[in-house]
């Protein structure tokens, strides 16, 4: 079925089953591979995108549930104020190791910062606990979020 969703400000019409996960649409239909597949069950956070600004696991988000909501992905997060600050802090702090989870980490961190400009450690834990990093970059992630918050 033809479905139209708004991704990074652009209406995209795709022909997929309504229960197709948004992640599959992004990666396999639209070719936007910055958003990563990790577990497929909302357990790891690698697939995190924003749905109307809220961090959401695209691997368990049926595409027909999106309606008129606006999707933002890692490819466009640098165009938001919070996203740009997060990306800069990520580079300043050399957060990335293998990098596979970092699209999701950055999307979760950007959503946090946009809604809570000065998060406490507990706020960071709450917002980031669903994003797994096998390299163990958690300490640098926390530092980078704090740096981004201070540059507000």
């Amino acid at each position, binding site marked *: 079925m033809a479905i139209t969703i708004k991704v990074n400000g652009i209406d995209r019409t795709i022909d997929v089953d309504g229960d197709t996960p948004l992640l599959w649409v992004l990666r396999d239909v639209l070719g936007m*591979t910055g958003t990563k597949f990790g577990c497929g069950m909302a357990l790891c956070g690698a697939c995190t995108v924003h749905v109307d600004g809220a961090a959401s696991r695209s691997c368990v988000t049926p595409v027909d549930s999106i309606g008129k909501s606006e999707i933002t992905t890692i490819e466009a*997060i640098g165009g938001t104020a919070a996203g740009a600050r997060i990306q800069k802090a990520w*580079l300043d702090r050399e*957060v990335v190791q*293998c990098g596979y989870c970092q699209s999701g980490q950055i999307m979760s961190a950007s959503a946090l910062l946009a809604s809570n400009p000065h998060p406490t450690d507990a706020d960071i834990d709450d917002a980031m606990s669903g994003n797994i990093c096998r390299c163990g970059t958690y300490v640098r992630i926390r530092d980078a979020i704090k740096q981004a918050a201070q540059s507000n």
Partner: protein
Amino acid sequence: MILDHLTSGAAGPIQSPSTSDLSRRSFLQAGAAAGGGLMLSLNLPLANREVEAAGADELAPNAFIRIGGDGQIILTMPYVEMGQGTYTSIPMLIAEELEVDLKQVRLEHAPPNEKLYGNPLFGGIQATGNSNAIRAAWQPLRQAGATARTMLIAAAAKRWNIDPASCRAESGEVLHPPTGRTIKYAELAAAAARMPVPERVVLKRPEDFKLIGTPAKRLDAPSKVNGTAVYGIDVRPPGVKIATLAQSPVFGGRA
């Protein structure tokens, strides 16, 4: 992609490449690149003598250096960056000897081609593992950079009709200190591609290193904070279909 079943079965003791190993083989071949630039291909040394003896002479090049007319140095890398930093450390080896800024060096993934990029230590499979990428690259990639530098200096000296020994290289340029003349690598690339490949090159002394042994920003980090980094799962060869298993929703279900 660390292949445990292969790495644990590597035959014989692992040995570091020695100078005598390297001199037995011609590492570098030069030719005019398609765009009129300088292209160097090189064989990375095998760390295992048994494997080396079996087919060293037939080993196809498994990495390439290109210096384009835009002055950018591109290295096609057969080793995967998995967070271990090879996409920063290997460019440092080249940039050190080539006398360029690290930001001028760019890496490309090697395309899937076991003939060109197969790792002989893994039976010809195009694979990264065994912690051997930087160990194997240490001497030949510095040698590759030094060879390219030598050819660029030779091309500049020929253009100026002077002794190459009176020139030196720095920050992507060849300099002739007595006269203050300089010329950028980009302008020399095509001419350098026609210069003979030097049989021997002089590697820098460790005390003269400017990059090796210093902290560096990871070259792969920017692409990993904006979604442009290409991982194995992101590769889309032409004509390849996307497939997934259709799993039964119930335990013990039958088709």
